[in-house]
């Protein structure tokens, strides 16, 4: 590797070739401000906030995009560079609504933070803000394009990570905008409502449709019994909303906060994740034994369901008929739990705390009411829960850990790993192996299905039969596998697809600014929780066994099918 010697602000530094000025500067503690730059994305250099002076160059250079060269002399704080950067920021601000105090990204906005670090006190430029209609026409995602600063990050994640291309840049000059085809509302595009765009947006232009008011109203109504379920991935991210390190395990504080907010029962989606494994594992065995449609593909990620319904409807028979853990939980809360407690289901309000915005859409699907009542009444993202806790003036960080309530709060390590890509597969393998072989697994950790890789494959010997499985991490990778199924080149028997990169821990409802480095920390925590659990196999969950004994009968029973399974295919968006 060739080493390049240069100076930045007169400090000598040697870095490998192809290092950018931005990266080199960082190494010696020289901060160059950025805005369109995102560590997980391609270099765009379109905001021009990172302009620096390179001696001998006839223009200023963007630190994010300019590779170093031998003998380069960089000045990041020359008068020319400083003034140009400030002017660029003022130009952006002149075309940005200055309603920071009531913006969803107040205190969590990259532009606001830049304006603060630049010390902008007035703006020589006239405001040219044009208020555009806010797109509220779907249950999940809000797009307020008046706030868009045209960095292009959302377009890249939609196209390069998910392969959807629901949004793109259109028009030119002052009309240049991030838009949809024919400028239609997002629900009339192929958007799957994954919300990855909201994670990369530096400002308050893309966010979830908030449902806090409705949840608060239920909590305030003494006649309503409000139960809450929390998804596996939320416990390793909610702490970030309160300044804790990425991946900080905050399960006990999360439960305590939910109790403080007034939820009558705090339950765990991990419980219904265990239940999903019982149903889905048995469904897989049934398909294997009875010649059903293979490969079978998981169905717990609602963004993924939206994807296959719109892009590959002909492959829907491959989907497991299982509802997602969120919906299974809701169906049981309104039946099994209602019966056990004697509370009328019409008085039960089910809230989910999800790392996901597509879950909002899923819960609103008309068919998700098999008990005669809505399975789930309201879905809040991790971010919304953070806001609720803050709004209730609860000091999250000093809360004493509390336990989930029984019965629907009892779970295993197999349930919690649903939060990471490969987790559903691993949980299923743990159970399927033991059901088939009737032997105990020596090693519960299926390392080959874990991690951040786009497509993961494994072959598992189950009582002499080799089961070939695969995991797709994000939709662009799912497409690769689906194309193989279509052409008949696919010899997998079971496939897990998670819509969002890294699985639910990287979901579109997770804290703003979630990056791959954050995702990795959360994945690590998920597996640490699994390892610390006394029970790590879904079929050993005593509450699940009791549920079958008292209520459902057995996996894939008539009642299970009625409450816990569904049929996909309607493009109900």
């Amino acid at each position, binding site marked *: 590797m060739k080493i390049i010697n240069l100076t930045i602000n007169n400090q000598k530094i040697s870095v490998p070739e192809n290092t950018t000025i931005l990266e080199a500067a960082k190494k010696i503690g020289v901060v160059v401000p950025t805005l369109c730059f995102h560590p997980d994305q391609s*270099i*765009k*250099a*379109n*905001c*021009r*906030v990172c*302009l620096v002076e390179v001696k001998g160059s006839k*223009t*200023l250079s963007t630190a994010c*995009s300019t*590779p170093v060269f031998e003998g380069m002399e960089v000045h990041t704080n020359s008068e*020319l560079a400083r*003034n*140009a950067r400030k*002017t*660029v920021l003022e*130009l*952006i601000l*002149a*075309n940005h609504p200055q309603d920071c105090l009531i913006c969803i990204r107040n205190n969590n906005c990259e532009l606001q933070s830049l304006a603060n670090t630049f010390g902008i006190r007035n703006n*020589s*430029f*006239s405001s*040219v803000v044009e208020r555009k209609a806010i797109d509220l026409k779907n249950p999940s995602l809000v797009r307020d394009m008046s706030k868009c600063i*045209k960095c292009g990050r959302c377009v890249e994640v939609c196209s390069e990570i998910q392969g959807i291309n629901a949004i793109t*840049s259109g*028009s*030119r*000059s*002052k*009309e*240049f905008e991030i838009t949809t085809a024919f400028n239609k509302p997002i629900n009339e595009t192929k958007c799957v409502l994954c919300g990855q765009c909201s994670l990369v947006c530096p400002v308050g232009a893309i966010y979830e449709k908030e449902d806090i008011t409705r949840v608060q109203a239920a909590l305030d109504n003494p006649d309503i019994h409000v139960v809450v379920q929390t998804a596996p991935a939320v416990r390793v991210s909610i702490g970030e909303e309160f300044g804790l390190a990425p991946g900080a395990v905050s399960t006990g504080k999360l439960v305590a906060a939910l109790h403080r907010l007034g939820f009558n029962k705090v339950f765990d989606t991990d419980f219904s994740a265990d239940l999903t494994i019982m149903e889905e594992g048995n469904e897989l065995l049934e398909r294997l034994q009875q010649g059903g449609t293979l490969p079978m593909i998981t169905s717990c990620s609602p963004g993924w369901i939206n994807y296959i319904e719109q892009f590959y409807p002909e492959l829907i028979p491959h989907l497991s008929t299982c509802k997602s853990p969120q919906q299974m939980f809701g169906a049981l809360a309104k039946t099994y739990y209602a019966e056990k407690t004697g509370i009328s289901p019409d008085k039960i309000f089910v809230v989910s705390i999800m790392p996901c915005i597509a879950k909002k859409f899923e819960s609103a699907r008309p068919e998700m009411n098999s008990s005669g009542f809505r399975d789930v009444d309201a879905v809040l993202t991790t971010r919304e829960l953070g806001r609720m806790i803050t709004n209730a003036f609860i000091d999250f960080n000093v809360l004493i850990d509390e336990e989930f309530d029984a019965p629907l709060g009892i779970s295993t390590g197999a349930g919690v790993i649903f939060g990471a890509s490969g987790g559903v597969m691993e949980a299923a393998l743990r159970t399927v192996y033991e059901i088939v072989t009737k032997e105990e697994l020596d090693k519960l950790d299926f390392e080959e299905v874990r991690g951040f890789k786009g497509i993961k494959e494994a072959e598992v010997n189950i009582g002499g039969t080799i089961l070939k499985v695969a995991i797709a991490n994000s939709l662009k990778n799912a497409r690769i596998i689906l194309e193989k199924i279509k052409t008949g080149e696919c010899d997998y028997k079971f496939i897990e697809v998670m819509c969002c990169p890294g699985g639910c821990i990287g979901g579109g409802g997770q804290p703003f600014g979630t990056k791959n480095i954050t995702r990795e920390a959360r994945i690590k925590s998920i597996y640490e929780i699994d390892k610390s659990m006394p029970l790590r196999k879904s079929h050993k969950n005593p509450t699940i066994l009791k549920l079958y004994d008292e209520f459902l009968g057995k996996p894939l029973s008539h009642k299970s099918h009625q409450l816990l399974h569904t049929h996909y295919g309607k493009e109900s968006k």
Partner: protein
Amino acid sequence: MSKIVELITADCGKIVPDSIDEYVKALGFEGLKKAITMNPIDIISEIKNSKIRGRGGAAYPCGSKWEHLYHIEHGPKYIVCNGDEGEPGTFKDKLLLGKNPLKVIEGMAIAGYVFGSNDGYIYIRGEYGNIQKIFQKAIDNAVTNGYLGENILGTTYSFNIHITTGAGAYVCGENSALLNSIEGKPGRPRIKPPHLAEVGLFGKPTLVNNVETFSYIPYIVKNGAESFTQYGTEDSKGTKLVCLSGNVVNRGVYEVSFGITLKELIFDIGGGIPKGKNFKMGQIGGPSGLCFSEEQLDTKLCYSDLRSKGLGIGSGAIIVIDDSNCIIDYLKCITEFFIHESCGKCTPCREGNRQLLILLNRFGNGAASKEDLETMKQLSSTMTFGSFCGLGQTAAKAFLSCYKNFKNEFENHIGKKCSAAICKFKEGEI
């Protein structure tokens, strides 16, 4: 009219543009015939020795560009001719494409031979619809007669030229935006590096030259570099097509030897200012170029002399403005053009041009202050030094050069005085 030297325009209007017979009679295709007997590296030497620089506006030494591409080992390589002549006041490519298309074709075919390329693309601007038809006929006739297509002139060399076009976006004249447009993508400039010689059209090594540049190639190959370098000055060799427009008697395209002064161009060739008015300023290179005042009229048309006066030759457009015009009014017009043509991708160009117009309007309606002048200077500097591509980098140059030459006119406007009586100030308002 002895100041006119017609190396590449002599046949324009004298021959039927798409006629192979007439082109050959005018000694056309001699360059190509000679080229295919030569070693490609010797052709590049000839180009280098001619010291010809790119005629699109950036004036990059053509030989160096060719040499760089030649040494790139992977392929296939593409030849692209930039005929998206969008700079207002520039219509020289229109003349070459419409009146002598076979010379452009010959130049591209020589380039194709040098780089072992089999495909060339010419991007002719959407507004030149009729010329596209003429050019296509010229291509077809060249193919029929063995000067283009498979096995050119009985050799194993094959080269095809494809015409592409856009919908009129000025920014597509920027080479990387042009390649995106050919590929069917939005015409917005690409990030560099990588350079187009390495990652160009369809991600392959690519030569992009202007129509005028390609037109000189057959001459240089046929007659040798020395024949070319006998024209021009020490640092600016050969001839240049200049487009005279605006308040000048003889508007049109003129091929002149480098070294002629701006005064000779405007007053001798151009015939001076019509209607008894006086010269106020000129803008060289079109709206993206710089404005010059009467004091700079003795500047020679050559790269070094122009540069020493802070000017540049750009596309070769010279827009002449008489004293009935107001600087503010003129700049408003220029800025409106850039607002219309900015691709919108980068902040300084997208937001800067619209803010520049807001500021100019304040000068135009009597609402400007001294602070506005400072804001304009800072904004223009940011656009010039901080924009993503040449469009934004040049958009504020007209203002900067006008401010330098006509500072008092800006100050007069702050005091609600417009010497040309064009700006209408509202009474009693500041």
